């Protein structure tokens, strides 16, 4: 099908179309805890659960998951394979040039998966550089950028398909550390009950000496500003009422992950 041309100046009528269809397609990336398919075959995760509530309140009763690779989320959104990226995607300036974001629904620090006992004492990216340890991360993960910024050579970073592969790689000693967001890393270690690997304490990644706050939100096509704004309104209400934390707590999120940052600030960084 032919793609509609970029700037729909009126902010798009997607919300109306979704209401009349009664269903919205969410792009998810199979990443625990943000958005994934559970053991029961149903999809769940922090972001989809929020999206269910928000879209429910916006009058769209049904949400339909479209699992894809993390790297395919933005192209998939732009080519209309789904309407919203609901994968806890970090908001950063490059991405802001491709899509528009809701305000973030969480903020998060990074953590490593390391061998049990953390023999190389890896706690932040600088430790990787210092010890020359082998680092891995996921395809298109923001952590790659942080590591490179801290001085790790990009070509030295092993890019793995997902966190489970990362855990295995660490357990087998193929790499010394796998970098991901705190909750992802902690979850996979907990979920698999790994006896050979553990997750490090969360740490704040730095960019050019300043803390770079990782915060994720929902992404929309650039022309769908009206939908994004409506989404933001409901999201803020959830935040204010504390409902948000209640929705995401089962996925390992805590007070520490709540944030009042705006997408605008994060896009400007």
């Amino acid at each position, binding site marked *: *099908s032919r*793609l509609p041309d970029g700037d729909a100046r009126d902010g798009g009528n997607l919300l109306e179309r979704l209401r009349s269809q009664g269903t919205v397609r969410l792009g998810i990336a199979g990443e625990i805890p943000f958005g994934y398919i559970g*053991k029961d*075959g149903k999809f769940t995760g922090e972001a989809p659960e929020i999206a269910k509530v928000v879209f429910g309140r916006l009058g769209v009763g049904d949400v339909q998951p479209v*699992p894809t690779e993390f790297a395919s989320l933005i192209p998939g959104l732009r080519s209309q394979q789904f309407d919203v990226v609901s994968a806890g995607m970090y908001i950063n300036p490059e991405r802001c040039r491709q899509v528009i974001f809701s305000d973030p629904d969480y903020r998060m620090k990074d953590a490593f998966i390391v061998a049990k006992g953390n023999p190389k004492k890896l706690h932040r990216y600088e430790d990787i550089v210092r010890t020359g340890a082998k680092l891995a991360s996921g395809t298109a993960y923001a952590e790659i950028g942080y590591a490179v910024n801290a001085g790790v050579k990009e070509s030295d970073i092993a890019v793995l398909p997902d966190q489970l592969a990362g855990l295995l790689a660490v357990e087998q000693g193929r790499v010394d550390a796998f970098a991901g967001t705190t909750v992802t890393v902690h979850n996979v270690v907990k979920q698999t009950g790994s006896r050979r690997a553990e997750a490090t304490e969360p740490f704040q990644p730095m960019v050019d000496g300043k803390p770079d706050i990782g915060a994720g939100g929902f992404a929309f096509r650039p022309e769908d500003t009206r939908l994004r704004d409506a989404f933001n309104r409901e999201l803020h209400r959830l935040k204010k009422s504390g409902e948000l934390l209640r929705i995401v707590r089962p996925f390992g999120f805590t007070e520490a992950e709540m944030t009042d940052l705006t997408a605008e600030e994060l896009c400007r960084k």
Partner: protein
Amino acid sequence: MTPGLWEHWLLPGIWITVQLTVYGALFAGVVAFALGLARTSRLRIVRFLAACYVEIFRGTSALVLMFWLFFVMPLAFRIALLPMWAAVLALGLTYGAYGSEIVRGAIGAVAPAQREAAVALSFTPWQRLRRVVLPQAVPEMIPPFTNLLIELLKATSLVSAVSVADITFAAQLSRLATGESLQIYGIVLVLYFVLAFLLTRLMRLLERRAKASLGQLPPPRTPLTRRLSATREARRATDLTAPGGAR
């Protein structure tokens, strides 16, 4: 592998794989015949263009083509295909190129005397092709096409890379959900094997009917392993599965 994963992903995935195979095969068949006939055309330029197409699509990797259709097409031409159709397109274009070699070979193998007999009966060139040449060439194409079809079935797994929820994609999701790699991939490999087996049997039936339509005896029964790998002579003859040859 939980019942939920079966119900929501693996079973629909099988259906998607079957659809991809069927649509891909139909599209590839159309491409193969169009190109194969073009390559026997009297016009040099038609032959040349068809040969170019075949070299290009046999030369490139199906997976790369799939990524290209999926990522580049929407940006370059502002045309976004549903992933499913992008996949069918990639499979059809690639395997059509291989298939055209089979079509060309089989048409070339029809005895020239048959064309002459058709000329002597004043058939038009189209009637000659339609009524005399193709009915004799098609049965010859079936064994190599069976091999190609199996290759196509296997290639459908590539679509999982562009997020089409086929068997392989379902396996990926299930692995993420349960972490049971051995069990899941084992099941999936067996599933593909069973599909390949069924396809081979189906083509075998077709082959028997086609041979019967030439008034020949049905091919002798062969042991199971032979049957699955389809006729080896055909494989050698068309060099089909050697992708620069065989596929």
